């Protein structure tokens, strides 16, 4: 394959813009591969691994765009490169003689503060190596911060959180995907009604699932404060989680507090629980994947997202809806009726990291050993992330799948490929898919996922099997992609719709149990046959 590389100096574009330019270029010129990345060290390493690095790109700086086009036909390369440059130019603000140029958007936080209407929050999603600097500037100018960016050096995270705490400001993140502050959804967030339950969470999709379930139970959210995934480590010490607790304790609208997190470091866990005991409001704590703990006083411990939502709603004194769903066992019995004995293994293909760990937690508790690219402590790591093995739970939002690509909540391409691959595997008993709605996510997931589910099921059927696809939809009827419509489109494609992430993991668990039981029965018959 012929490869051509060049640099567009001194122009930063975020990965989403670069990917859009790549896509348009491929569509317009038919060139096989277009890779556009900023000239950071890690991106150069990525190109190296992909065999796309060239000496021409060595001099690229982090503020330069590296352009790589590849095709079997060398004559296509120049046209593709021209297209890329014209796309890049087309996106630049138009200079020239119009007054519009005078009102060009501000470039810096201080420029933004000068223009904004009493700004009080900065939503930062610039590349990680620059993110803490922007956050610090925002804090110094009196803004709270939601730091979506990941790969922020830990010492910088600690430094900005200390400044924030001194100033009585919040740093949600780094790696904070969602929050709702005063009813304003930030990042990946669902549209939920306002209500009496305040959330603090170190896990983005966990928060989203809990807030959606609370909404579907008829209750609502006062505030949802994300902490970012590193907050509960010993180094950071849970600064944001503790601040969040204080905020919700003092917030008049909040009657019940719920915490959703991976298990914090032991010292942090102790501090959080102690603080929770003292706030004078009921607190539901779900440290997902941690050791089960007993509830005491105002602190209610839960071990799944579904239970967390139910408990919080109950404590808020609201009527709970639901309960008319068929049980996991009934569900599994129906699904398993059409499976072949070879179909024994679960394949969870998640876009939400919390869903992936919740499933592993539930399965492990049921004695199902699953491999993962993000295994629970003590569990087996998947040797090759591209290849499932036995029971497998994959977080497709994890770094190895997202370098140079959009997150799987935005772009279903990688998940669809993987779904079709699993459909070819005769040992697969069922596939579990999460579908996350809300701002930031794909504008119409079912539109791309439903045809893929049809194809996967047809492919399995062509090989003489049924492939159950369990879907749960994390969303609400008020989301930009309405919940009921998404569910209906997926069900119409033959997906099995389960009401929650927890429910889906339990149904999958029941299916695995049944297929393993059948297998044992078969095994016994074989052995008995042998004895005969």
């Amino acid at each position, binding site marked *: 394959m012929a490869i051509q590389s060049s640099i567009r100096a001194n122009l930063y574009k975020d990965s989403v813009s670069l990917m859009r330019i790549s896509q348009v270029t491929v569509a317009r010129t038919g060139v096989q591969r277009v890779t556009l990345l900023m000239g950071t060290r890690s991106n150069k390493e990525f190109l190296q691994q992909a065999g796309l690095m060239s000496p021409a790109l060595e001099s690229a700086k982090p503020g330069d765009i590296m352009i790589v086009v590849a095709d079997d036909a060398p004559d296509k390369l120049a046209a593709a490169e021209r297209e890329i440059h014209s796309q890049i130019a087309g996106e630049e603000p138009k200079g020239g003689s119009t007054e519009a140029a005078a009102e060009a958007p501000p470039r810096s936080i201080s*420029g933004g503060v000068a223009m904004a209407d009493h700004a009080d929050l900065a939503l930062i999603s610039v590349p990680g190596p*620059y993110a803490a600097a922007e956050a610090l500037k925002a804090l110094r100018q009196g803004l709270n911060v939601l730091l979506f960016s990941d790969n922020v050096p830990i010492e910088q995270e600690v430094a900005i959180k200390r400044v924030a705490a001194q100033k009585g400001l919040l740093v949600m993140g780094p790696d904070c995907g969602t929050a709702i502050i005063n009813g304003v959804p930030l990042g990946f967030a669902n549209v939920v009604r306002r209500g009496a339950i305040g959330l603090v969470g170190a896990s983005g999709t966990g928060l989203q699932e809990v807030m959606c379930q609370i909404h579907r139970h008829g209750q609502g959210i006062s505030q949802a404060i994300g902490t970012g995934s590193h907050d509960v480590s010993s180094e950071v010490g849970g600064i944001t989680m503790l601040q969040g607790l204080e905020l919700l304790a003092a917030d008049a609208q909040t009657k019940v507090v719920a915490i959703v997190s991976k298990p914090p470091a032991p010292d942090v866990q102790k501090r959080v629980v102690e603080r929770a005991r003292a706030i004078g409001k009921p607190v539901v704590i779900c440290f997902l994947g941690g050791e089960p703990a007993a509830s005491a006083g105002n602190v209610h411990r839960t071990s799944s997202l579904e239970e967390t939502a139910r408990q919080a709603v109950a404590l808020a004194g609201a009527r709970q809806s639901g309960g008319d769903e068929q049980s996991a066992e009934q569900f599994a019995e129906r699904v398993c009726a059409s499976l072949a004995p070879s179909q024994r293994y679960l394949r969870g293909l998640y876009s939400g990291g919390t869903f992936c760990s919740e499933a592993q937690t539930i399965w492990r508790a049921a004695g199902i050993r699953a491999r993962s690219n993000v295994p629970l402590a003590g569990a087996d790591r998947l040797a090759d992330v591209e290849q499932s093995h036995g029971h497998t739970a994959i977080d497709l939002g994890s770094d190895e799948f997202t370098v140079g690509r959009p997150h799987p909540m935005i772009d279903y391409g990688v998940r669809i490929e993987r779904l079709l691959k699993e459909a070819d595997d005769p040992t697969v008993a069922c596939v579990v898919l999460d579908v996350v709605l809300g701002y930031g996510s794909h504008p119409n997931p079912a539109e791309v996922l439903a045809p893929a589910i049809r194809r996967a099921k047809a492919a399995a059927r062509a090989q003489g099997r049924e492939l159950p696809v369990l879907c749960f939809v994390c969303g609400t009827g008020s989301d930009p992609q309405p919940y009921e419509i998404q569910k209906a489109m997926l069900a119409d494609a033959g997906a099995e719709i389960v009401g929650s992430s927890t429910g889906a993991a339990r149904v999958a668990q029941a299916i695995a149990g049944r297929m393993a039981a059948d297998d044992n029965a078969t095994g016994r018959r074989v052995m008995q046959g042998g004895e005969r």
Partner: protein
Amino acid sequence: MNAASSALQDKTSVISLGASGLDRGVESSGAPLVRLQWQPVGDGSPEVAWSLAQLVGDAGDADCPGSRIDRANAEVLERILTAQPVWVDVAAHASEVWPDMGRTLLHAGPPIAWNDMCGPMKGAVVGAILYEKWATTQQEAERLVAAGGIRFAPCHEFGAVGPMTGIISPSMPLFVVLNQTTGNRAYAPMMESGGAKTLRFGAFAPEVIEGLKLIENVLAPCLKAAVAGIDGGLPLKPLMSQSLHMGDDVHNRNTAATLLLYRAVTESLIKSSISRDLVDETLRTIGADDMFFLSLSMAACKATMDAAHGVPFSSIVTAMARNGVNVGIRVSGLDGQWFVGPADIPVGLFLPGFSEADANPDIGDSAITETAGLGAFAMAAAPAMVQFVGGTPQDALRYSREMAHVTIGRNPGFTLPMLDFIGAPVGIDIRKVVDEGRRPVINTATAHKEPGMGIIGAGVVQAPMKCFVDAVGALATAATR
């Protein structure tokens, strides 16, 4: 640890930067939203970004480095705005001002060694040596320099500024401008007439040396007498302010300012006892050169910015100067240091027969005007200037608007009619330059890269980001120590 208290105020108003799409919820909720057109700061290095963030001021924390810098900058701005540069004298010879200068030649821009000088500056050095009669031929002059017989120093370090090559030798007369507020003086050589064939563009032919002699023997004594005849000297700020309202930027367009100067000196000269011949010669010289006022403009700006120099912790630029190879900046709070980066070739128009291939990189101390908030910073006042870059009057306004993003204040003494008489932006903050990724714009003439070929065009050029990035690094070290 305080409880976070301000996060849950009734209203949320968001500034969003980075990947697109994450603020859609904010937009839909109707909350106020400002989206930044974000770029990595400065040269794109994360280390610089982090250093810079340490230098941001904080209204709630008077002791943080950034707040100390902000206070120092307020003092600097006050000194800039209250400066009163007045043309008070002509020094008959530079050696009167600096009696110890001996065989020193002052030059434009940051320090540079003979071997590293560009063609025009080398030519001007030769010319100055011939003018001083330290040698009689080019070869002899070059041998003298090569043997270490000449000491070089930047004009800026002597309170002086020189246009283009900026060479000042001991015998040259100098304009003397006094900053009446602070008592400091600034000096600049007089503009030679003669178009291309001038020392400031590196020419050293016999007629160039004759031109220098004319300045020394005719112009200097006449103008010395003229200014002596103006009671209290000639206040330059009102004159420059008026010329902004007449279409000058007092850097690359001085047509109006030169006329105003002409008016001021004419009466004084005629009343003086100087012979009619010399008065004729002087008025003809000033009247023939639209750029004659530039020396006084530069000296006025230098007198202003020197008063603003040396305020500890200040991040304000007090000099931008180019030696034809490098651009150097000085920063008020970082006394004794130059921060340099490679000079660019100006973008603009070329005289017939010349092209970019003939151009020397940016040269001259005249960017002191931009440093003081004039020149390209006041381009809104001088729409004629943007024709050099093929622009429209709207572009002239845009330059002035954009430079407001890298400055800390506005100068009510220099107002811009086309922008509703708002003051020209002034006080370049190295933090803002790096944070905004906007390089200061400079209006300039373009010199031929060969000595003595003279002016070949004019246009705009930007100071290199490296100067500002390095200065931010040095300030971070100094302020967080």
